């Protein structure tokens, strides 16, 4: 897969320059590290701040989800690499309006160490902070070791729900509790058909045959559950749903939302084809589907493939999921 870029070293900085130039009504650079993006219109005084971050290359994750009813600030690193603790601390400083800050991010070693460290740094600024770590990828560890799972597209639901709770004026403990509940209610699985290329690496992260696919793919090219012949869309969707429903069985009357997400290159046409089987499986389980999301919500640049994220909703989660939000990539009215 070929890329349009200049010097790979400048990829993230040039991307952010264009990003903030195109959307000045949504996003603004903050501080002097060049890697912290904040809301153009800051949250109201007394609103709990929500910060996320991680490596670049996943748009709209992370910075795209900064906005009303969503995130307040993000620190982003080079492609697939953690930002520094200082950048994260800056993001936390920007997000704090006095009510404290929730760190809401994915379960990756570098991000955890740096967000922990950032927490230590902002202690000096008297900023109270909590953390909720997404670990929604059922393919990355068995249920018994669920805490070891990677964080993938489930982030989108967590951002949305926690963001709505903060916008509603809940305090830090409440926002944290609700974010943790959303995180716990998410299960994801991905399937990749081709890799992506990290600009500075210059070649695809992994290679895969023209007739093969990898089930259980993460969002950085980590190995999955099985590699097999490319199957028909209905069979792929069926297996993915099997794995999600095995991990989080649904009962008649359950209310859920589902995200059918492109990993990047896979076009929406194919996501709609997948959705037919997804919806049929949810219907067969007797579940009611609320606000299905189909599109590019959490990507790996130009990787081909798709992921599904299922979230089981209670009344509280559903209310926050369907509450208004607005950013350049997503708006709920």
């Amino acid at each position, binding site marked *: 897969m070929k890329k349009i870029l200049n010097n790979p070293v400048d990829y993230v900085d040039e991307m952010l320059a264009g990003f903030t130039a195109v959307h000045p009504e949504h996003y603004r650079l903050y501080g002097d590290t060049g890697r912290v993006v904040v809301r153009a219109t800051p949250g109201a005084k007394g609103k709990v701040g929500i910060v996320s971050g991680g490596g670049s290359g996943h748009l709209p994750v992370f910075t795209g989800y900064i906005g009303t009813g969503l995130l307040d600030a993000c620190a982003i690193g080079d492609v697939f690499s*953690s930002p520094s603790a200082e950048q994260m601390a800056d993001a936390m400083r920007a997000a704090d309006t006095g009510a404290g800050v929730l760190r809401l991010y994915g379960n990756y070693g570098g991000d955890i160490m740096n967000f922990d460290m950032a927490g230590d*740094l902002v202690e000096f600024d008297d900023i109270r902070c909590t953390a909720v770590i997404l670990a929604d990828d059922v393919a990355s560890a068995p249920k018994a070791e669920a805490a070891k799972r990677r964080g993938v597209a489930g982030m989108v639901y967590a951002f949305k729900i926690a963001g709505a709770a903060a916008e509603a004026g809940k305090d830090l403990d409440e926002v944290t509790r609700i974010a943790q509940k959303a995180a716990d209610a998410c299960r994801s699985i991905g399937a990749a058909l081709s890799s992506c290329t990290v600009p500075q690496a210059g070649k695809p992260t992994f290679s895969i045959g023209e007739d093969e696919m990898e089930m259980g793919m993460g969002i950085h090219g980590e190995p999955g559950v099985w590699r097999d012949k490319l199957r028909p869309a209905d069979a792929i969707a069926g297996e993915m749903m099997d794995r999600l429903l095995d991990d989080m069985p649904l009962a008649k009357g359950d209310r859920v939302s589902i995200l059918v997400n492109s990993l990047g290159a896979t076009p929406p046409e194919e996501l709609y084809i997948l959705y037919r089987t997804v919806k049929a499986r949810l219907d067969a389980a007797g579940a009611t589907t609320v606000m299905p999301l189909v599109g590019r919500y959490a990507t790996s640049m130009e990787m081909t493939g798709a992921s599904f994220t299922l979230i089981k909703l209670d009344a509280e989660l559903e209310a926050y999921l369907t509450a208004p939000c607005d950013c350049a990539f997503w708006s709920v009215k």
Partner: protein
Amino acid sequence: MTLTVETLRQAITRLTAAMERDFEALNAADGALGDGDLGVTMTRGMRAITDLSPSLPDDLGQALLACAQAFTKTSGSSYGTLMATGLMAIAKTLRGKVSVEVADLPALVAGARDAMQARGKAELGGKTVLDSLDAVARATATLRDADAMADAAALAVRQAQDEMRGKIATIGRARIFGEKTIGMDDPGMLAMTAIITAIANR
């Protein structure tokens, strides 16, 4: 023997030179098992500290906090974060002090080791920088003489590296290489050997 910010400045000079010298070697070691940025992390961090050096305050706690922040600013890589974590742990202990006795150093190294372990959640014996620091802390624990301590630290860090070489990496990016890592140095241990040797001036 009593150490002050002046002792710290001299150590910074030696450390920076050592990291510049080992730039390629550290990148190469990390490149064989990870993303090849360890030399970059260390030289960037030490250059930033060198820039701070003349203006470091006499308060050793404040001085080391400034050094820690140089690492958090220049890099989001694991090693930079761990270095900053270790330095901050020492800084907290020394807050308000303008000098420290040589005899207190082993406990400071042990404190750094523990803070880094808490941060990175790795086990001892896992073939990481923690094993280097653990070996140094244990080998120097009962010593009080500066020269003897320097000798013991330099020896211990090298021995730890030799001992771990035959093991399988269990942490970080190296872990996915599994058996292939047997016989290879852990990049973080290699870096810590150079760091301790430079500080000990051996």
